[in-house]
């Protein structure tokens, strides 16, 4: 049985326990609240972190979208720029290329592609050796120099082999550096100067020709005087009484030889001059007939036939004698070739009209022209004949004449049975009247004459010729312009005739004399007849325009007499 004491003890214990538990509970409660607070804090923190993360993610997404858009736009701009660049690069006639450090092509422009005849895609990635198998060693050497030293190599002149043949190019090679400054490739610009070089060659060639021309003109001029003397005195000699038949024959030979020489000189002069020819209506049929006649004279006995194949041909505008010499030349060339090769016997000349152009074909059945010579036949001084036979000027003169007549002449090398030349000339646009020829002549009984020439022998000759006409003429002489002027002044400007050489040394030549006289005494000026070795464009124009008389050297008695006669006839009329 529990006593009171026990119960009291028990209650005491329980009370203590209760107090203990109460205290503990309160404290635990506190701790719990704290823990809850902590927990809530942590949760809130987490929540906020999560929110930040979500915001960040949203921002990131927006950023990505924006950046993607920017990127796409930039890409588009870049593409446009790249296209622009390509257009610019391609429009350049220069060859533009870019190779990397291993001499592989990274980029080329259209001109480059055209030159090597490969599409751009097939060039990129290949090495210099692949594209230029014959030139790569030299090119690589230049490239490597640039790559190694970082220096530009300018104005490299080189020849490259392409499918079109060899081309000359001038290139610049420039090192291509990256952002850090290290050299990663070579950029090249090259210009194809093959055409320019060809042009230069042509220019040099024409200048040479011009120089030759000048030389030739000079020589020809010089020759005219001695020739005049030879033929003039020979003619006079012929009529001399002491000359017998045998001697006369020898003199004829001399005259023939000098005429031939004169003809050669005339050819030379024609070659060298920029002549303005007399333009008249020219009947080509007649000219060809003349040419055949002329050459026939020397063909006699040599069994060459000439066949004409044309009927009615219109006229052309031009110089009859010049066109004549073209056909003479072609016929002579054909004849000479057939003779020396002992092959062929027929020359055919055909002519048709096509589109306002008269086209002649002059062909033979001879040996033809060898391939290696075909490019040079129209060059001056080119001759396939032996030395001494032919000057080589023939075809080049023909070329000049035909071209001056606005026509063309060329060798048809598809014709293999001989040589065939094709000459085209435009149909005449106008008809013009041929100049009238005066046939009138008068030789006066008495005249006061002044001869002006720097060559004493010519003076002698002219004197003899004049005395041949009429022994009673009073003849004065002057060897230069100044002396002539003096004599004229002393004679009161009243010579009936002043026979004056055009080209004279000293300060006054023929023309100067005329001009001086014209100002001081028109009468005396009108009494001048010019003697000239070269009747070329300017001079001829001047003389014709002023209706002045002239005799060209070398002259024969016939010509001389004719001009003098006409002169006196007309001047007497004026008086």
């Amino acid at each position, binding site marked *: 049985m529990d006593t009171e004491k026990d119960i009291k003890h028990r209650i005491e214990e329980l009370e203590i326990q209760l107090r203990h538990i109460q205290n503990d509970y309160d404290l635990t409660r506190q*701790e719990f609240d704290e823990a809850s607070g902590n927990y809530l804090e*942590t949760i809130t923190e987490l929540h906020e972190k999560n929110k930040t993360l979500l915001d960040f993610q949203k921002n990131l997404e927006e950023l990505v979208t924006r950046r993607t858009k920017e990127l796409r736009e930039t890409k588009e701009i870049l593409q446009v720029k790249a296209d622009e660049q390509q257009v610019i690069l391609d429009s350049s006639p220069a060859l533009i290329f870019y190779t990397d450090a291993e001499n592989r092509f990274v980029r080329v422009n259209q001109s480059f592609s055209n030159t090597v005849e490969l599409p751009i895609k097939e060039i990129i990635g290949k090495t210099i050796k692949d594209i230029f198998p014959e030139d790569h060693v030299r090119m690589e050497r230049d490239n490597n120099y640039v790559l190694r030293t970082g220096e530009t190599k300018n104005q490299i002149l080189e020849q490259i082999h392409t499918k079109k043949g060899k081309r000359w190019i001038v290139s610049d090679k420039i090192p291509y550096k990256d952002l850090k400054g290290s050299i990663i490739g070579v950029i090249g610009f090259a210009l194809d100067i093959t055409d320019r070089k060809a042009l230069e060659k042509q220019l040099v060639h024409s200048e040479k020709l011009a120089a030759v021309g000048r030389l030739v003109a000079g020589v020809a001029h010089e020759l005219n005087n001695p020739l005049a003397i030879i033929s003039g005195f020979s003619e006079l000699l012929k009529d001399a009484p002491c000359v017998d038949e045998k001697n006369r024959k020898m003199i004829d030979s001399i005259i023939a030889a000098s005429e031939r020489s004169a003809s050669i000189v005339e050819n030379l002069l024609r070659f060298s001059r920029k002549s303005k020819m007399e333009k008249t209506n020219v009947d080509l049929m007649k000219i060809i007939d003349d040419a055949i006649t002329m050459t026939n004279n020397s063909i006699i006995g040599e069994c060459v036939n000439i066949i004409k194949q044309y009927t009615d041909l219109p006229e052309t505008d031009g110089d009859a004698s010049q066109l004549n010499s073209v056909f003479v030349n072609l016929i002579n060339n054909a004849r000479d070739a057939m003779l020396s090769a002992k092959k062929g016997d027929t020359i055919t000349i055909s002519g048709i009209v096509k589109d306002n152009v008269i086209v002649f074909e002059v062909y033979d059945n001879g040996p033809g022209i060898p391939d290696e010579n075909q490019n040079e036949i129209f060059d001056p001084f080119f001759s396939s004949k032996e030395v001494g036979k032919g000057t080589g000027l023939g075809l080049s003169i023909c070329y000049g004449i035909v071209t001056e007549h606005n026509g063309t002449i060329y060798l048809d090398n598809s014709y293999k049975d001989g040589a065939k030349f094709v000459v085209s000339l435009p149909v005449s646009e106008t008809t013009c009247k041929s100049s009238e020829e005066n046939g009138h002549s008068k030789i006066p009984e008495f005249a006061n004459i002044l001869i002006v020439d720097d060559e004493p022998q010519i003076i002698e000759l002219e004197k003899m010729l004049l005395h041949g006409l009429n022994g009673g003429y009073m003849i004065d002489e002057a060897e230069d312009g100044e002396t002539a002027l003096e004599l004229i002044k002393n004679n009161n400007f009243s010579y009936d005739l002043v026979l004056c050489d055009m080209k004279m040394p000293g300060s006054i030549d023929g023309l100067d004399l005329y001009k001086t006289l014209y100002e001081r005494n028109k009468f005396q000026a009108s009494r001048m007849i010019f003697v000239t070795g070269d009747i070329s464009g300017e001079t001829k124009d001047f003389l014709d325009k002023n209706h002045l008389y002239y005799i060209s050297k070398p002259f024969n008695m016939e010509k001389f007499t004719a001009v003098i006669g006409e002169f006196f006839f007309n001047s007497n009329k004026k008086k």
Partner: protein
Amino acid sequence: MDKVDHSKLTTVQNTITNILNTVNNPDSSVKDLKYIIEVDPLLTANVIRLSNSAYYGYPKRVSEVQEAIICIGFDAVKELALSIKVSELFAGKEHFSGYSRVSLWKHSVAVALCSKMICRREFKRRGGNMYAAGLLHDLGLIILEQFEIRMFKEVFARNRRENKGLVDLESETFGFSHMDVGKKVAELWGFPDEFVYAIGNHHEPLNAPEEFSLVSNIIFIADQICQSQMIGYTEKGELDKKTYFSALSRIGINEKSVELIMKEVKTDFKKMEDEGLI
């Protein structure tokens, strides 16, 4: 004294000091404690492992220090961390003359539990400090044992043979007691003043200064009662009944309360033992 300065104990000291400071600082947060623990990976691992033991009765799995703090409580984690750290001091299998580190540790834990409970149940105070003080009150013994082993052994042998109190024997042999040593070390290590005095007066609570009187007395009482119940290491000799009752009246609690509390302590202690926390 200065030998103590440099030793392997220093690392342990740092952590303990840090924890104690957190304990004392009313503003210290979950984060602060978390950082202190997480700096020491071994400690972290142990804290998390032990947080999951059935002792704490939390149903869900704890895998993080922060989680532990929230789920089993700030104080609980504090105490746990402290225990783990302090137990490192007691590591080792030395034993002689009735003394072993293991038994001393068990005694310290018992004193800690008891002090804490007294504080909470009688004085309605949280008692975190009490727990720590309890764990550390015999710090001096550890120090002496580690650094003056020969003389220490002697003292213990004599305690067994003779019936003199440990403190007296120590004073005779060293000139100071384990209380003094403990106090000095506590000071050296920068423990809060509360601890310094609790450790320094745990056999003479009545000598403690006024502000620390409560702490010192509670520790003393707990120490005495645990020894009388022979939990862990027990000093040979008579309990100082006189001082005991003075202490009780000094702080105003009665014997019965303490007895009842002790019952709980034993139960708790057993639980902890079973769960491997000790």
